[in-house]
């Protein structure tokens, strides 16, 4: 509202300064009211605050880390092969697909939604990748005209949908996917992986549209699509057939404990990420404190960053040792999947924590009505969350395929999705929305993967134990979340 000078009625008795109101109009009330608001001042106070938060119900990652340590101790006693360098490398590659699918699911879980179709959708994406690299990029030759053009139609429709709702990154990705679909570019492994992700994006637009715009509950939409994508996967692969993707060295190396980066690169990686984290949090604490903002004490930051650096440093050191059982071969270094997941982890974490989109996602998950009244286009946030989920699921499908070196009609089916949901929940992501981090999927994924890993080292314990122990761990994590919520309501500490 503009009010040109002079048009305002002159009878106003209030001075103009007061009409602009609010924060400038009442200098008598000191800003020093919050001068003490700089956060905890010592490591002791921080710790007391943390204990209070936990007692008040905000348990965070505590159950997951506790569970991880308990499982480590149990399995170390069950088998002397458990705490070996070889097994550590194996564990990482076993956990990677679960972790990545868990990272995908965090996006929809944050909104209090669920994507039951992420598993089979990841299978479809992986199949597209597999078909592309085994047919020299000529998808039509393998799929047949009908399936080929119908899939292209799905991508075109979702491309238009993404454009209509002005979700440009998704529209661009799907457009890229269409280009790859119609050319033979996907003979290149990297481009084939990109195709899998673009197909995932397209699937996400469809799911998001059905949930946010048509208004079907996500449980039902994704239950239906779970079946649908399973069917599409069978159509892609062919009944009883399987696509061997292990022949491509690039794909095979993605998820192999034997293909690793050199020890020097391992240390560089460690220095960049662990050191980078420590440097950034230190800088932020010092900068915030200097500017009178809430900040953690330097000592706490040092302890946190230091602990992370030590734990990851030990892991890097162990993995850099020669773990080959054959004296003629040297087998050392961090598995190649680790830097890939690390980069994804950092990017996704930054999007959630530091961008406006991430903030709006949390707000929508916490109180959709408040978000709507704040002018946030809630439907777009919902669709975007499903797009993130399915796109990442596409990449997770590629990892699974690389791990088993093949794609068949069961890829992404069975327990795949449920384990990924369990990973996120065990890590501390709430199924009620509004609470969760990308890191939850990492910790939870390690917990989920460690159970079959440890049990497999003791052949007398059959697969039944795997499922039962996973059940107990998941129930424990969910119970910790539910109890903490009840406690939070009772104490008012969130």
């Amino acid at each position, binding site marked *: *509202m503009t*009010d040109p000078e002079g*048009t*305002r*009625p002159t*009878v*106003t*008795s*209030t001075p103009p*300064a*007061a*009409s*602009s*109101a*609010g*924060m*400038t*109009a*009442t200098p008598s*009330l*000191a*800003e*020093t*009211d*919050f001068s003490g*608001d700089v*956060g905890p001042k010592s490591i002791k106070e921080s710790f007391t605050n943390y204990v209070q938060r936990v007692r*008040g119900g905000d348990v965070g990652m505590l159950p997951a880390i506790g569970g991880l340590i308990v499982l480590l101790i149990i399995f170390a006693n069950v088998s002397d092969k458990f705490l070996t360098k070889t097994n550590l490398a194996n564990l990482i590659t076993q956990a990677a697909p679960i972790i990545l699918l868990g990272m995908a699911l965090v996006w929809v879980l944050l909104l209090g939604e669920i994507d039951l179709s992420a598993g089979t959708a990841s299978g479809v994406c992986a199949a597209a990748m597999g078909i592309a690299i085994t047919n020299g990029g000529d998808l039509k030759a393998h799929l047949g005209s009908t399936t080929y053009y119908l899939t292209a139609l799905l991508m075109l429709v979702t491309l238009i949908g993404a454009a209509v709702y002005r979700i440009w990154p998704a529209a661009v990705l799907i457009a890229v996917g269409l280009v790859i679909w119609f050319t033979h570019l996907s003979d290149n492994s990297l481009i084939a992986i990109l195709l899998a992700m673009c197909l995932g994006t397209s699937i996400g637009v469809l799911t998001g549209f059905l949930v946010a715009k048509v208004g079907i509950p996500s449980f039902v939409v994704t239950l239906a699509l779970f079946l649908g994508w399973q069917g599409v996967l069978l159509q892609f692969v062919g009944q009883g057939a399987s696509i061997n993707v292990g022949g491509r060295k690039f794909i095979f190396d993605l998820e192999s404990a034997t293909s690793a980066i050199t020890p020097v690169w391992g240390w560089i990686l460690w220095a960049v990420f662990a050191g980078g984290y420590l440097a950034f949090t230190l800088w932020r604490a010092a900068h*915030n404190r200097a*500017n*009178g*903002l*809430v900040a953690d004490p330097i000592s706490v930051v040092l302890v946190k960053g230091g602990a992370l650096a030590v734990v990851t440093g030990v892991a890097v050191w162990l993995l850099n040792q020669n773990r080959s059982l054959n004296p003629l071969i040297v087998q050392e270094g961090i598995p190649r999947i680790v830097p890939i997941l690390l980069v994804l982890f950092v990017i996704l974490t930054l999007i959630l924590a*530091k*961008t*406006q989109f991430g*903030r*709006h996602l*949390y*707000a929508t*998950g*916490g*109180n959709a*009505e*408040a*978000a709507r*009244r*704040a*002018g*946030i286009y809630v439907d777009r946030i919902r669709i975007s969350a499903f797009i993130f989920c399915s796109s990442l699921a596409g990449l997770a499908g590629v990892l699974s395929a690389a791990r088993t070196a093949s794609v068949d009609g069961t890829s992404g089916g069975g327990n795949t999705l449920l384990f990924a949901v369990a990973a996120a929940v065990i890590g501390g992501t709430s199924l009620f929305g*509004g*609470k969760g981090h990308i890191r939850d999927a990492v910790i939870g994924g390690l917990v989920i993967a460690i159970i079959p890993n440890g049990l497999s080292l003791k052949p007398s314990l059959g697969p039944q134990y795997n499922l039962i122990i996973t059940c107990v761990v998941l129930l424990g994590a969910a119970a910790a979340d539910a109890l903490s919520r009840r406690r*939070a309501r009772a104490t*008012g*500490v*969130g």
Partner: protein
Amino acid sequence: MTETPLLEMRNINKSFGPVHVLHDIDFSVYEGQVTALVGDNGAGKSTLVKCLAGIHQIDTGEILFDGHHVTIHGPRDAAALGIEIVYQDLALADNLDIVQNMFLGREAARAWGLSLNEGFMEKEARRALASLSVRTIKSARQKVASLSGGQRQSVAIAKAVLWNSRVVVLDEPTAALGVAQTAQVLALVRRLADSGVGVVIISHNMNDVLQVADRVDALYLGRLAAEVRTADSSVSQIVELITTGRSGSIGLAPATADVSM
């Protein structure tokens, strides 16, 4: 009255299908004053406020802001004029902290627009809270889930202040609060008005109304029964206006009041 209203609604009529909800309502908000909007359930308080907020469109009548004719087509128009509504359910996200809630949907971004300027937002949020002397809140980085009802109300009001609102409408701000918290919030409402904002408060609690408001507009079955100055009024008079539409010589003519029945 010698002052010119900051906001003036004249002859407002609003129908929902065959139901005529608002009849020729005149309603004004003045700078630095608290105007109480009272009335029984279904008297049209919420409808009137929603017309002001742009959620409903008025059928006939005119709205003047600063003496200029304005049209309010949606919530964004109202916000652009500096009209902020604090709804009864407060619309705060429990999982976010105070700063994040106060800037929700209007976050300050850094130059390249990718990351958020947390330092700026934290300082501004504190300043808004401090300007209202909200002293009970320990830290601006507390999660809203950890706040009491009165503190939440304070945050919601401070959010309105943060955006330099000129008219703030409070829908039943004390309905869910205890005695001490009610006193806190009423003091806050007074300070808000003293800082030059035109405040509208909807309330069923006559004690609150008399304590904090400068004038009272009583609605009766979709009509404005009367506008009285709190100084010249009493609880019994306002209650009479709310329940019968008239009190002594003021209020609706008996015929009108009966027809409305």
